[in-house]
């Protein structure tokens, strides 16, 4: 990009460098756009402005401590990031969280999904020009953040789940409050739908914009509501149930046309399903402990003790230490994924037996969704580029890591 490309341009094409400081790009995303008139010729996304080295940083922390870094990946749904990481380490260690912890986790994950979708709806509608929905959605999101504050003491960077459970128990009063909130939430979702679903401006701006077929979506690696909007049944909560998702009933909403409007309907229906899951979780909430006994302490050592071999002595009175250390974690490498609000959030962890991950690779949905922007924007107008960025629901903290 840059100088060479600009020289090759035709006289009719027009170059616009959108971002990285543009309010509609949802973070520090930069788009190199070439237009012919107002039609998009091609778009090249440029990422990396928010790179903080999260994956490298995790290599210098022990497994329980590295969890606090995952809060900062997708900072508007940090609970699911934590849960995804914790489930990955649980599968590595072969421990099972307690039953109550599973239900609490499912409940907070769905609350996070609600809050993330509300923020998506708010900003997406604001980009297209519907100001009112922005304010209404933030009103409900504020309540969800207050629940998080009551549960764990923080609103965004929660650090609530632990490997093998959760940090503290949720009080019954808070559960009752959340149960009361679910009823009002359903009415509020109806309100959003009345404001948008049949609105002629909304339909004109979203129908037929950013169409992607099921095959193309699969080949681009899209996941989450973006893939389901194209009609592909892919939801890790159903296909490979983790936590308590196997014990609650819910449906996976699917779209038909794969355009922005269908993705919007999918997410709205998903919010309804989230509310139903939260209700079922609170109704079925079992009693008991919230953290498993085998779960590692948060101050676990980063390496095992050295082995002292009796036959390694040089002569009587001296004992030599061998280089071999006791392993405190199982060795191996594996991939584990959960269904985050934005798509499939995977953690690929390589363990060398010490208390620190040898390598932690994050498969972030936002990063992969950005790669679909050039394909989705083909032949659309400049104003539709904003719509397409909004409908993909990208968070740059997760994409750049």
């Amino acid at each position, binding site marked *: 990009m840059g100088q060479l490309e600009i020289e090759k341009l035709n006289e009719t094409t027009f170059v616009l460098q959108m971002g990285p400081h543009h309010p509609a790009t949802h973070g520090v995303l930069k788009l190199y756009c070439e237009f012919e008139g107002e039609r998009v010729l091609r778009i090249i996304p440029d990422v990396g402005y928010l790179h903080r080295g999260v994956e490298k940083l995790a290599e210098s*922390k022990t497994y329980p*401590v*590295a969890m*606090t*870094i995952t*809060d900062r990946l997708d900072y508007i749904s940090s609970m699911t990031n934590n849960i995804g990481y914790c489930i990955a380490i649980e599968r590595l260690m072969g421990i099972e969280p307690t039953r*109550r912890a599973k239900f609490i986790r499912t409940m907070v994950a769905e609350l996070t999904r609600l809050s993330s979708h509300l923020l998506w709806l708010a900003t997406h509608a604001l980009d297209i020009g519907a100001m*009112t929905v922005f304010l*209404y959605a933030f*009103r409900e999101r*504020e309540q969800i953040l*207050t629940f998080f*504050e*009551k549960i*764990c*003491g*923080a609103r965004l*960077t929660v*650090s609530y789940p632990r490997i093998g459970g959760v*940090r*503290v*128990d*949720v*009080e019954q009063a808070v559960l009752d409050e959340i149960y009361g909130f679910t009823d009002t939430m359903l009415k509020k979702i109806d*309100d959003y739908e*009345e*404001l*948008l679903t*049949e*609105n*002629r401006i909304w339909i004109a701006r979203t129908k037929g914009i950013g169409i992607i077929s099921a095959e193309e979506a699969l080949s681009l690696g899209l996941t989450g509501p973006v893939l389901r909007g194209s009609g592909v049944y892919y939801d890790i909560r159903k296909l490979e149930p983790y936590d308590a998702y196997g014990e609650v009933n819910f449906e996976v909403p699917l779209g038909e046309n794969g355009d922005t409007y269908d993705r919007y309907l999918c997410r709205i229906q998903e919010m309804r399903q989230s509310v139903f899951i939260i209700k079922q979780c609170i109704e079925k909430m079992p009693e008991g*402990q*919230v*953290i498993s*006994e085998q779960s590692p302490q*948060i*101050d676990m050592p980063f390496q095992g003790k050295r082995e002292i071999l009796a036959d390694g002595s040089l002569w009587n009175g001296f004992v030599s230490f061998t280089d071999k250390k006791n392993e405190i974690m199982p060795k191996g490498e594996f991939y584990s994924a959960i269904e985050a609000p934005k798509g499939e959030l995977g953690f690929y962890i390589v363990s060398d037996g010490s208390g620190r991950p040898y390598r932690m690779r994050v498969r972030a949905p936002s990063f992969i969704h950005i790669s679909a922007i050039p394909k989705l924007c083909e032949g659309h107008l400049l104003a539709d580029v904003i719509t397409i960025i909004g409908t993909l629901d990208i968070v740059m903290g997760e994409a750049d890591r």
Partner: protein
Amino acid sequence: MRTLVKKLLFLDLLKGLIITFKTIFTHPVTIRYPKEKRKPEPGFRGRHAFVRNPDTGKERCVACTKCAQVCPSQCIYIDYSINSETGARVLTKYEIDAFRCIFCGYCEQVCPVNAIVLTEFYEYASYNRQSNYFDREVLLKNWDEFVKQYNRNEYLNKFWYLPGVDRNILPAGKRNPEPILCYLDKQSHIESQHLSQLNSLSVQDNSKKEPH
């Protein structure tokens, strides 16, 4: 046909406008911040403080350095010396760099004696960089400031006793921590003290008067 009528009558837009019209009659959810303050929920992770031990008037810290080890952002600095007579560790330096802190609350969870705590005090922005480096005295002062504005009589952080966690896997100090008495409705506390003093005085007066 029906859709045409709907479009001609602007029914879709009217539906939305009815909702916005209804909202006029609801209360605003925003608060006017500097005048009206948001009350944080119990257990909110705000400014750091050292719990002042009511018996000794000093901090509870025993310099085990667990918090410094577990801190993800490495913002805690501890120095200690060893008392040659008793062999106990004596805290000589304890500093927290609040700019680096990420407020994960690991330090208060790992502390075996519940010395460090993240209080519910959140308004400590300042123009001065130095004021966000907390040392021992400042941390104790933070606790006093927090207790002064706290509006309950007893303070017990839920990350001290960790409800729902099996008692056996916790260190001894975390199994059954006692709440700290704050006497935050200080007025009534002072009044009650005053009354008891008056009573004792009056009793003394009576006893003095009796011989006459």
